[in-house]
């Protein structure tokens, strides 16, 4: 099935992977200082800002779709749930990988379990990420059981499906918001455009936004690269939910700026205000696309709204980690080539694993593990794909 031809794509992939391995060796043999531009004034760089803090957000489609398709029972969205859960699982595994690169003493990681400090937001993030990765694994396992026709195992896990989804959603609510809470302890450092007591809520809402937006982006990517049909009915329906959370996010943003009286800073022309305006404009540009019923049903417009919102939320995360902290730390930080390369390397690994899983496991074929008890919901047509 997989033809062994040398193509441009494969050569590029090989270069990314080989380079990644070389940098990995350098990272662990020579230390963080040898491959990164991290410093005492910029202790958190690209690997935390993008790979971890944005990465967790990018993987939030898993719990968002679990809620919409399985808890609130919107069966139209079922075909989107399983790929989203696979993406989330791979995403969280990448986050754990990134942490191993980024932590100074990763071999002490188990201390988070052995000697936890419940006062630390980092404790909450670490525990939730750890537990949720396990939950995602269990949520995804039915696909594996289906593939190997382990019917009895699949039924066992099916009995635990709803509690698992609930647990996954609760854990995600906690750590998605606590990525924002991390910065609550730095009121003098994070610029007032971003520092608000609402940080946890803003991070949670934007996680919902990027979760759904990523599902759209992924659907378009797998339509292109894995030759699937775009499940447009389900995506348009998802667009309605997305519209709702974007409106909620914007409403809270406006209220927060008003309540704290910092509107004058939004347009004061400073370095921070520029980034803040661009970041929030991205949300606003996506709004009319989602509002317009015709545009919401057209793949090209809906998917571009998805891309816009993904960029908007990633930018929000990077603005908090870098732009908003820059004035306090007084140092400009530009990641090294090695830092970019490792991020690219990890994302590439994730994409390859996703492609492999999508080709070998029934990820796209059916709605999900317990679709059989309401198979009629799937028979609507939205969820059928042909595999490449």
């Amino acid at each position: 099935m997989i033809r062994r031809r040398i193509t441009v794509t494969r050569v590029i992939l090989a270069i990314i992977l080989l380079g990644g391995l070389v940098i990995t060796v350098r990272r662990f043999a020579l230390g963080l200082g040898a491959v990164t531009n991290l410093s005492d004034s910029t202790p958190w760089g690209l690997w935390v800002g993008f790979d971890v803090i944005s990465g967790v957000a990018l993987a939030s489609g898993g719990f968002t779709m679990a809620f919409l398709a399985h808890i609130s029972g919107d069966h139209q969205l079922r075909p989107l749930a399983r790929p989203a859960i696979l993406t989330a699982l791979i995403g969280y595994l990448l986050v754990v990988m990134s942490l191993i690169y980024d932590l100074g003493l990763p071999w002490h990681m188990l201390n988070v379990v052995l000697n936890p400090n419940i006062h630390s937001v980092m404790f909450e993030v670490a525990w939730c990420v750890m537990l949720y990765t396990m939950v995602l694994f269990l949520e995804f396992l039915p696909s594996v059981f289906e593939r190997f026709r382990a019917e009895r195992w699949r039924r066992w896990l099916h009995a635990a499906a709803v509690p698992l989804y609930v647990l996954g959603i609760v854990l995600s609510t906690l750590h998605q918001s606590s990525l924002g809470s991390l910065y609550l302890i730095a009121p003098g450092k994070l610029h007032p455009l971003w520092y608000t007591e609402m940080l946890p809520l803003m991070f949670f809402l934007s996680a919902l936004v990027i979760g759904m937006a990523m599902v759209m982006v992924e659907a378009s990517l797998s339509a292109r690269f894995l030759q699937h049909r775009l499940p447009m009915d389900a995506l348009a329906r998802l667009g309605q939910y997305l519209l709702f959370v974007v409106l909620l996010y914007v409403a809270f943003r406006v209220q927060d700026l008003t309540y704290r009286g910092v509107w004058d800073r939004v347009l004061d022309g400073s370095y921070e205000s520029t980034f803040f305006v661009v970041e929030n404009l991205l949300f606003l540009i996506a709004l009319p696309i989602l509002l317009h019923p015709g545009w919401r049903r057209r793949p090209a417009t809906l998917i571009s709204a998805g891309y816009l919102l993904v960029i908007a939320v990633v930018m929000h995360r990077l603005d908090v980690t870098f732009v908003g902290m820059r004035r306090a730390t007084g140092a400009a930080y530009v990641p090294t080539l090695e830092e970019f390369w490792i991020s690219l390397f990890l994302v590439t690994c994730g994409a390859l694993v996703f492609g492999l899983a999508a080709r070998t496991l029934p990820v796209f074929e059916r709605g999900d593990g317990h679709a059989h008890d309401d198979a009629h919901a799937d028979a609507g047509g939205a969820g059928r794909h042909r595999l490449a």
Partner: protein
Amino acid sequence: MTRGRAIATTDSPRRRGLLFDLTRCIGCRSCMHGCRHANDLPIPAPDATPPEELDGDNFTAVLPHEDDDAGTVYFRRLCMHCADPACVSACPVHALAKRDDGAVVYDRDLCIGCRYCFVACPFHVPTYTWTRTAPVVRKCFLCAHRLDAGQIPGCAAACPTGATVFGPRDVLLHLAREQIAAHPDRYVDHILGEHEAGGTDVLMIASIPFADLGIWTDVIERPLPELTWMVQEKIPYVIGTGGLLLGGLYWVINRRMRLGREGGEES
């Protein structure tokens, strides 16, 4: 003005700290030297340029500030040993801890290297040995090992002018108030560390406003750990309420759909 006022006694009686009087500092950097000796840090060549920031080999730094009126003012950077340290609350593994005697200490065997303490510290104190393969956090530990041996911190022992003195925090606070009251012309009526970040065990008094030094300007008076604990303490409720709510939602919706299906089949 403040002379004779009762000394606050709510603090832990054993809490010690340092009082640094900027007006007495002549910039000789003896404290830096004393610190290096006390902590087995590398001794730089005599003609080396003094560091401009804290780093892994300098737990304290004496820095000059050119003031329009007061001329050259020297100030010290070092861990302020907060009463309720942000770094200690931020550390997920108790690698940082506040001792009863005031010292904020570090255990490298527990540290995972997440560097959240760097983000949390309002005084930009922690430093990291970035070039090592097993990097650790480096900062002033109030010479905890010397305190255990009944000695005073290296910097205070080395200071020739009495600019840095060591003692119980309440006594130091009293001393600082007396100094300011006795010489209102020489001091700004502000003890840095009395209230900043919920109070610190290192206190400073100066002839110019600390804001003029360009650092420590954004430190709030509230203890920083409260800001995250406000959210953290709600975790059990989120788990309980969230779990029940989601479970209930699923039950209601699922039941209605099942009834709807059954009803549909009947008709």
